[in-house]
């Protein structure tokens, strides 16, 4: 059940993020919307690896090595999401740097003012 809730939350975040990125005109708001969608993707990925009634894939006194495969959830999506979070930060920083350059070139962050590539 909780995997479904997390997945629904992740999908909603993706939709909210895409809606924000497509309807907002301010570039900074679009960047915030993209990070929301990014979080949603991470949440969906994490929820796929969840198995009800199990614990984190870290061995300790309560998760002995002998029956680890019956006690832990899938560690692979977690490792993937760890990667995805870090890359997300890098992409966000990159978007912010470009937003700065755009503001410098036109003096505005309104996306409708940037029509150089529009046909």
């Amino acid at each position: 059940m909780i995997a479904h809730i997390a997945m629904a939350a992740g999908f909603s975040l993706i939709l909210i993020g895409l809606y924000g990125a497509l309807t907002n005109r301010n570039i900074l708001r679009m960047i915030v919307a993209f990070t929301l969608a990014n979080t949603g993707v991470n949440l969906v990925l994490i929820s796929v690896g969840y198995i009800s009634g199990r614990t984190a894939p870290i061995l300790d006194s309560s998760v002995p090595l002998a029956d680890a495969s019956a006690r832990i959830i899938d560690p692979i999506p977690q490792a993937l999401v760890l990667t995805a979070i870090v890359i997300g930060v890098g992409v966000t920083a990159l978007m912010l740097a470009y937003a700065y350059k755009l503001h410098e070139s036109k003096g505005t962050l309104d996306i409708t003012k940037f029509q150089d590539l529009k046909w």
Partner: protein
Amino acid sequence: MIKRASVLLLLLGLGAVFASLLLDYVPSTELSLTATYYAERGAQETGATNLITAILVTYRGLDTLGEVTVLFLAAAIVGLVLSRGRQAGETGDAGGATAAPPAGELLSTGKDLLVPLILLLGVYVIANGHLTPGGGFQGGAILASAILLILLTDPMRRFSHRLIAALESVSGLVFVGMGVLGIFLAGGFLDNRILPLGTLGELFSAGAIPVIYAFVGLKVGAEFSSMLVNLSETRESRS
């Protein structure tokens, strides 16, 4: 109006796809084949009790190398994009740069108190990455957050770009060097068994994982710091 409607239509379609995915999703009750292998053999083969670290640093170490490279590229491009603007901006408003208002008492005292603690926490998280939740990426981000706090207190503060670049390239080189050592001394690239595995669950165990993760942490911290420093050193653009 048409634009708004088409956006809603697109999201509606996407929402329908997501809904069908969600409704058809049946949570698995068993680990997948790969995950079972990691669960049963991972701890013995790598000596790390945190299986995520074992996967990230050893089994999928090449991916982590790629990830660090992507992060390096992002930091480098941020620096490149922003440094051009800086040169153009500085000729324009040289002398016109106004000093930032002093940070409040709370912020500056809080910085003096918190920065050493944050750095300590970062080092702790990195050093225990193979035992508890944590590791190089998380610890590196914590280290960079100390830099962020310093920059919040004093936006005009300048950090040595050369130091950050040296830290970053040295840790990257050590990371790759440990990986290459694995080819000659152990089973393959980034194999952690070049150092003794030690006892499962102790701080000095898991072979080369803590060493590699420490340098990953340094590298990630240096990359995030360079992004923060670059972003903070940009002047207000003329509007």
